[in-house]
């Protein structure tokens, strides 16, 4: 098993972000953590990346418990960071170097790669992500789409076996969203494990084989993307869809669930 949690609880002061959570994620699977804002997706990703540690319960990565003490050991920390990469939702948080090249080289250098290998791999990664022309630019001066690409490249340069993504298409224009999804779908040729936190239901079937629907820090449903998308009651209960109204040229006003997928079509109303 890649990740396992049992009775996991994480609180920000008194506010519970994750509540008594027990899940299992298999090797090589593509899992979407789906939930509205504040459902605990980002917190869970950080726990899986060994950045946060729960106040109760256990988290295991390939059978080994993730604790603060374990990460105090350099050998374990380097080995874990080499295998698991996390792309943060906000690129401003992740892009702190003065050039794109330095940004992408940061991870390999911290993990002690030989410098010739770093030079070579960074060059390859920049070319693969179509950002080689940006290598001398300051990351914080790039457009939102370019920043996301650099953030993703800065993690995928390590070629981790497990990729954790926090809202990879948030705040991107439609073309950048599509490019980002293409990059993720192509990455690893299906041999990697990808865990994506998202509330963009339109991406689900492209990025995941299985969905964990979170609400209030608990998993309230676990199913294939198509099944989750068909369950309108679940989506409404977890604030993942809302009634969307639009006016046609004839003056008719339609109201239906606002989901960018052909799966949810029931319940159209005409007023």
């Amino acid at each position, binding site marked *: 098993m890649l990740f396992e949690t049992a009775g996991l609880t994480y609180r920000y002061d008194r506010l519970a972000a994750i509540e008594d959570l027990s899940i299992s994620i298999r090797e090589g699977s593509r899992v979407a953590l789906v939930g509205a804002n504040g459902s605990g997706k980002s917190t869970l990703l*950080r726990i899986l*990346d060994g*950045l946060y540690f729960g106040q109760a319960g256990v988290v295991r990565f390939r059978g080994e418990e993730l604790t603060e003490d374990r990460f105090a050991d*350099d050998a374990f*920390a*380097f080995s874990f*960071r*080499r295998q698991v*990469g*996390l792309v*943060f939702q*906000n690129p*401003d*948080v*992740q892009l*702190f*170097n*003065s050039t794109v090249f*330095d940004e992408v*080289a*940061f*991870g390999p*250098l*911290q*993990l*002690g790669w030989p*410098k010739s290998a*770093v*030079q070579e791999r960074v060059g390859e990664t920049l070319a693969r992500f179509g950002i080689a022309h940006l290598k001398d630019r*300051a990351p*914080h001066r790039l457009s939102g789409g370019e920043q996301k690409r650099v953030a993703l490249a*800065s*993690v995928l340069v*390590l070629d981790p076996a497990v990729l954790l993504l926090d809202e990879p298409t948030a705040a991107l224009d439609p073309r950048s969203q599509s490019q980002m999804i293409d990059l993720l779908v192509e990455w690893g040729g299906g041999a990697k494990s990808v865990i994506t936190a998202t509330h963009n239901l339109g991406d689900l079937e492209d990025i995941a084989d299985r969905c964990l629907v979170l609400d209030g820090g608990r998993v309230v449903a676990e199913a294939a993307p198509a099944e989750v998308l068909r369950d309108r009651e679940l989506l409404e209960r977890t604030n993942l869809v809302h009634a969307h109204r639009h006016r046609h040229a004839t003056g008719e006003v339609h109201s239906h669930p606002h989901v960018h997928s052909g799966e949810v079509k029931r319940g159209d109303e005409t007023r």
Partner: protein
Amino acid sequence: MKLPHRQGGFLERTIERLYRAMERAFHAESSAAGGGLLQRLDARVKVAGLFSLILAAAMARRLWVIAAIFALAGVLAVLSHVPFRVLAARAWMGALAFTGVIAVPALFLTPGDALYRVPGLDWTVTAQGLTTASYLLLRVETAATLALLLVFTTPWIHVLKALRVFRVPVVFVAILGMASRYILLLLETAHEMFQSRKSRSVGALQGAGRRRMAVASAGVLLSRTFQLSGEVYLAMQARGFRGEVHLLDDFAMKSLDWLALACFVALAAGGVWAGR
């Protein structure tokens, strides 16, 4: 990013100026890649050499010695293609303004031989006061010029690595590294907060209202700073950061570096000896 010119309170204008200054500071990275004398030297030599000159200026008890170190800084600026107008705008005027607040009262408050009496006021400039103020101003101007030369001629990340070579604590270096990047982001946030407030208000706030707004904004910014710093640290950890700064460019001392280091040490030692 070019900000539109607009009127505003003291705080807003200050933040806007700081924002522009930080934007310019990022452009300093490009001058660090130029082909001047200091740009060709190893970052460690520059940190050690320029710091030893600052130390010599701070320890000197003769005005001409400090003036000579200041002149040397000017020569280094010319050889490193750093324009005087940039030094004047970024170091000299600022240092003069901040130090002047302390130095000007010293002209009148330091007891000693009267040199000049201000007409209409019972204030007397004393010789000792003038000397004290001159020492203070010249030391600060010299230190600011040398420090700015380091920043202008060395990529910031190399300065940080050089500081680690000199055993400056990891936490301090990490804070410096993040501050240089994120102060711009926070100033941008502050600027947008003021713009947002302006877009929702009509007319100018007066006195108490303006102070309340400033205090509220400061609170929000402090909270965002705290949150951002935590997030950035997590993002660094997630990519294997364990406190040490690792770079692609290794420092390597060449003969020019050794020669420059010897010159810096000799000049600083000479300054300390002559100024004792």
